[in-house]
């Protein structure tokens, strides 16, 4: 037995010092107390006022004790559950754990057969969910697109209805309004076995997006209120653009974004104390020549590292961003930008890292980018898992027994460890030239496409309950009825 022995079990990464984080933390509290946000939701303002917020017209300012109280109420560690009870599909949120998944709402999609860019349609949803279900390093599901071929108010609902039966990994659901949210919730609760069962084992997370700078929109808060009342874990994620809708400096965008998230936090905790809450979201630069929000810029992982460290300093999990690219196609730029950012997300411990599979600056979703990033995430996770040091891993006796000019391939020690100590690529090629030639001289891109198509033709996600299928049909029929005059 050892005493006073320090273990660093993974790769350590910290950018900001505790002093810097404290200064940023105080600055967020200052912004909320002195500047405040415009809150476009009457009931939300009432609830905040009753909790102790200062309200003048639409402007809501939060005394710092109120924010600290909300931070204290929100849990840092909790579990998001697989709908089918598969423990491998559960997500345990907590310090030092990074998780990954796609993003929502791209208008376009790379067709899985023709590999061409076209509008995202309803039939794409189950395909994305299936691929998510099969990829070992993708932990949660979003759809990579906005469904274009249904009634324009029902895209989010059809999206959830298409994802839910095709993956048992936890889903992050967005919605247009609280009607969508109610429909989505009805489906998830049916599978969980009632509201009480759902509260114990939530199988989806609700995503809401406020507006930068410093606005809590009606839609964002209306959905937040619904989710909080039904105890649905919540993501409240702004998308500030440095130089456009946020300060140009990394420190400035981070504190503004945190203030936007914490208004949502304060409201959510006032409604439902203890509600799991992720602050967010997507922080990057406005490219000053193309005017786009750059998804492949180095400032994105840098700013994400900053907001992640601030979130963890404040005791909240973070809705992170990575694995995305500005490239229009599945090329070297896509792989470089995506791989660098997922590695950074893994290093910083982004609790839920989304937008994996975004191409063309979030205009086009690609399951090929997603599958390629699954490989990059596996690679990153092996590095962040670090080096385990103990008597058995030091292998002093094994080295002694093998001796000079022996070999280790036959050692029980080797057999015991080689599967876990080494990471095995699924897409990167390590064969010799002749074998590679014999197997058709494939490129990384060829192998990625083949893997996706193989998953789509062979992978079988676990089924939902028959009664949940009926609920999905009912919810969709009711929704169609609701919007038929619109």
């Amino acid at each position, binding site marked *: 037995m050892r005493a006073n022995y320090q273990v660093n079990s993974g790769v350590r990464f910290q950018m900001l010092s505790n002093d810097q984080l404290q200064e940023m933390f105080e600055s967020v509290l200052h912004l909320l107390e002195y500047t405040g946000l415009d809150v476009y939701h009457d009931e939300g303002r009432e609830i905040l006022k009753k909790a102790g917020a200062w309200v003048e017209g639409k402007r809501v300012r939060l005394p710092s004790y109120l924010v600290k109280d909300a931070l204290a109420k929100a849990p840092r560690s909790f579990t998001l559950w697989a709908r089918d009870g598969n423990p491998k599909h559960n997500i345990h949120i907590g310090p030092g754990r990074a998780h990954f998944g796609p993003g929502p709402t791209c208008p376009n999609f790379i067709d899985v057969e023709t590999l061409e860019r076209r509008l995202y349609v309803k039939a794409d949803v189950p395909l994305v969910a299936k691929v998510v279900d099969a990829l070992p390093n993708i932990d949660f599901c979003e759809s990579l697109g906005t469904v274009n071929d249904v009634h324009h108010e029902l895209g989010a609902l059809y999206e959830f209805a298409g994802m839910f039966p095709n993956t048992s990994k936890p889903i992050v659901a967005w919605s247009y309004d609280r009607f969508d949210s109610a429909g989505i919730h009805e489906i998830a609760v049916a599978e969980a076995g009632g509201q009480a069962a759902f509260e114990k084992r939530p199988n989806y997370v609700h995503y809401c997006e406020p507006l930068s700078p410093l606005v809590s929109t009606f839609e964002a808060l209306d959905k937040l209120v619904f989710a909080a009342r039904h105890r649905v874990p919540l993501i409240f994620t702004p998308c500030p653009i440095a130089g456009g809708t946020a300060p140009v400096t990394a420190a400035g965008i981070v504190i503004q974004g945190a203030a936007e998230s914490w208004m949502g936090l304060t409201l959510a905790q006032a409604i439902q104390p203890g509600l799991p809450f992720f602050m967010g979201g997507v922080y990057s630069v406005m490219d000053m020549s193309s005017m786009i929000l750059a998804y492949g810029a180095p400032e994105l992982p840098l700013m994400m590292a900053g907001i992640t460290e601030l979130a963890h300093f404040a005791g909240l999990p973070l809705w992170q961003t990575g694995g995305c690219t500005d490239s229009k196609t599945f090329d070297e730029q896509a792989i470089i930008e995506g791989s660098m950012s997922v590695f950074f997300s893994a290093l910083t411990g982004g609790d839920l890292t989304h937008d994996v599979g975004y191409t063309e600056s979030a205009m086009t979703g690609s399951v090929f980018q997603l599958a390629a990033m699954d490989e990059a995430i596996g690679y990153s996770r092996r590095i962040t898992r670090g080096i385990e040091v103990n008597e058995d891993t030091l292998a002093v006796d094994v080295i002694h027994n093998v001796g000079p000019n*022996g070999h280790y*391939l036959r050692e029980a020690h*080797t*057999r015991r460890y080689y599967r876990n100590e080494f990471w095995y690529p699924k897409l990167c090629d390590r064969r*010799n030239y002749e*074998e590679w030639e014999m197997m058709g001289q494939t490129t990384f891109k060829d192998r990625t496409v083949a893997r996706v198509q193989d998953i789509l033709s062979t992978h079988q996600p676990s089924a939902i309950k028959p009664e949940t299928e009926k609920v999905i049909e009912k919810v969709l029929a009711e929704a169609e009825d609701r919007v038929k005059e619109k």
Partner: protein
Amino acid sequence: MSRLYERISTAILEGEPEKAADLVQKGLDQGLVAKEILDNGMVVGMGEVGVRFKAGDMFVPEVLMSADAMQAGLYVLRPHLVASGVKLIGTIVMGTVKGDLHDIGKNLVNMMCEGSGFQVIDIGFNADPEKFIEAIKEHQPDVVGMSAMLTTTMRAMAHTIKAIEEAGLRDQVKIMVGGAPVDAAFAERIGADGYGSNAPAGSDLARKFVGAA
């Protein structure tokens, strides 16, 4: 009966030397023919190992355990095979060429070849051409295997093959080469009969040479 063949095959596939030896003994005790235990049980198991390794479903440490299981079975079987006049599928003379002290790669190929039914004569590392020639004369092998780890020592393979030619022994043996810097083009250039990119590929090649693949 076939159930026992299947169990032997499984013991080899799963790399369980003791179990393989026990089951082979059990087969002999039940009066099974040694050659049939070899062909219907052990070789079937080792064949599956090769298939899985190539598909990426098995890795080298597991393949070696299977080779060990094969050897353990053969140890029990060999006296019976000899008694009934059955020969092993062939003999291989194997060495790392002159100037090269690397031993491991060659040892792995040896293990795999023994596992797939060959008798292997290991002449060690830093073996000069004369040592290869003596071994060929003494053991009359079907196959000669040469290994080199370095770009500086791989040339010694060419010298060794030339010496075997000059000794008038080239027609008696098939020559296979391997090692990190070696590839198929090099093998052809120096007049070898074939090249194996790794240990299982080496034993496959040897089996092909003797018509057992």
